């Protein structure tokens, strides 16, 4: 009885602390108050962030109809990109703060955690004006009425609340490398670590699916189960900065093999950015610390 007297309150407190710790963290709405989105500028953010690569329909010819439905296999189950077009099945009815919470905090308007297959851990570093511009641009895209498909994720990963714990462990919102002029400056780092979310595929993950930042851009198994995603670190990637920039522009490797797989989508986006942006990314890549 004496033990119970202690244990019951302790359990209640632990559960309370657990709920508090795993509760969704939202953006401060004041940071978005008074911001007006510019759709034309938002198109560039949209391109650099590669939104369409994952959210266009698997068979869709028009890659600006963000119907969703592409499957993303992982160790935890298969995630399906949702509909993010401006329809009732997508983002209709959202305001900028809803959008900012989704993109930079991984929290839905209903207060549910999103799975980190959606790279909000990278987008967390997105500048508020870019978020507003992106939101404005996405309103101009075609609407699709196809409902989003449920993720195919087993217990215990299907408990969304558990993602609060995941976020506590792995979601810092901080940059990994310091910005420097030789490493593409602030712009290069912003493109690589925030918008283009390169590390999501090029950095290996730990057993819980968090990025292993000690092996930053060190290459990783392909989550599709086929082959590997190459390392970008100088111990592995011997291309010059010009080679990297040209690859991002044309899709040609220095020996004129061509880009393939999901990276073809990525190059398609980079080819639409400016030459300065591509060079900034290339310099960031060339300045990566070598791994063993």
């Amino acid at each position, binding site marked *: 009885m004496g033990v119970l007297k202690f244990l019951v309150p302790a359990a209640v407190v632990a559960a309370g602390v657990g709920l508090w710790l795993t509760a969704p963290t939202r953006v401060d709405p004041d940071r978005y108050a008074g911001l007006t989105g510019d759709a034309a500028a938002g198109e560039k953010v949209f391109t650099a962030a590669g939104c369409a690569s994952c959210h266009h329909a698997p068979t869709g010819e028009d890659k600006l109809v963000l119907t969703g439905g592409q499957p993303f296999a992982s160790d935890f189950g298969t995630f399906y990109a949702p509909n993010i077009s401006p329809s009732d099945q997508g983002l209709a009815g959202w305001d900028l703060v809803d959008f900012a919470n989704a993109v930079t905090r991984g929290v839905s308007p209903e207060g549910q955690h999103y799975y980190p297959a959606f790279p909000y851990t990278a987008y967390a570093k997105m500048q508020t004006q870019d978020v507003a511009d992106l939101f404005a641009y996405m309103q101009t895209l075609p609407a699709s009425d196809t409902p989003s498909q449920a993720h195919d994720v087993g217990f215990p990963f299907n408990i969304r609340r558990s993602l609060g714990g995941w976020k506590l462990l792995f979601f810092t919102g901080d940059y990994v490398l310091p910005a420097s002029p030789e490493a593409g400056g602030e712009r290069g780092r912003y493109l690589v670590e925030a918008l283009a979310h390169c590390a999501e595929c090029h950095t290996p993950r730990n057993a819980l699916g968090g990025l292993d930042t000690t092996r930053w851009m060190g290459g990783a198994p*392909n989550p*599709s189960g*086929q*082959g*590997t*995603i*190459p390392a970008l670190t100088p111990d592995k990637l011997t291309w010059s900065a*010009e080679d990297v920039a*040209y690859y991002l*522009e*044309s*899709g*040609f490797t220095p*020996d*004129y*093999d*061509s*880009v*393939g*797989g*999901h990276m*073809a*989508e990525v*190059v*398609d986006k980079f*080819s639409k950015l400016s030459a300065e942006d591509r060079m900034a990314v290339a310099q960031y890549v060339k300045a990566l610390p070598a791994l063993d």
Partner: protein
Amino acid sequence: MKKLITTAVLMAGLATAATAQDLPAEVKARQGQFRIMALNLGVLGGIAKGAIEYDAATASAAADSLVGVSMVHQPTLFKEGTDSMSVDGTRAMPEIWDNMDDFGTKWEAYKTAAAEMQTAAATGKDAIGPALGKLGGSCKGCHDTYRAPE
């Protein structure tokens, strides 16, 4: 007994090595045609980047070679049963054979881009860059769907 196991292991090793080298002729041929493409793209890319000096004859020879490859009848090389699941040493995904019409359309895109490069190569250095972009787009267009990752 030990000898037997050792022999078996060695033979198994030899057998694996042999499979890797004895690719079907169709696979060798298609890998060869992609190498011909890469070498000639290298010449045109070098010109576009300014690493190789432009002259019409060099550029046209490279572009003509690309057009030549584009005329090779692909179904002969992409023979049934030579996909990445059936043969070790190819990255041609089985989806090619499920979508032969689409695969053919994608090859046509390369054919068109190669023909445009022929015109560009004869025109001058500045025309080559954009034509290369289109060629690269046709490579990506197909590799995005039908080439397995390394």
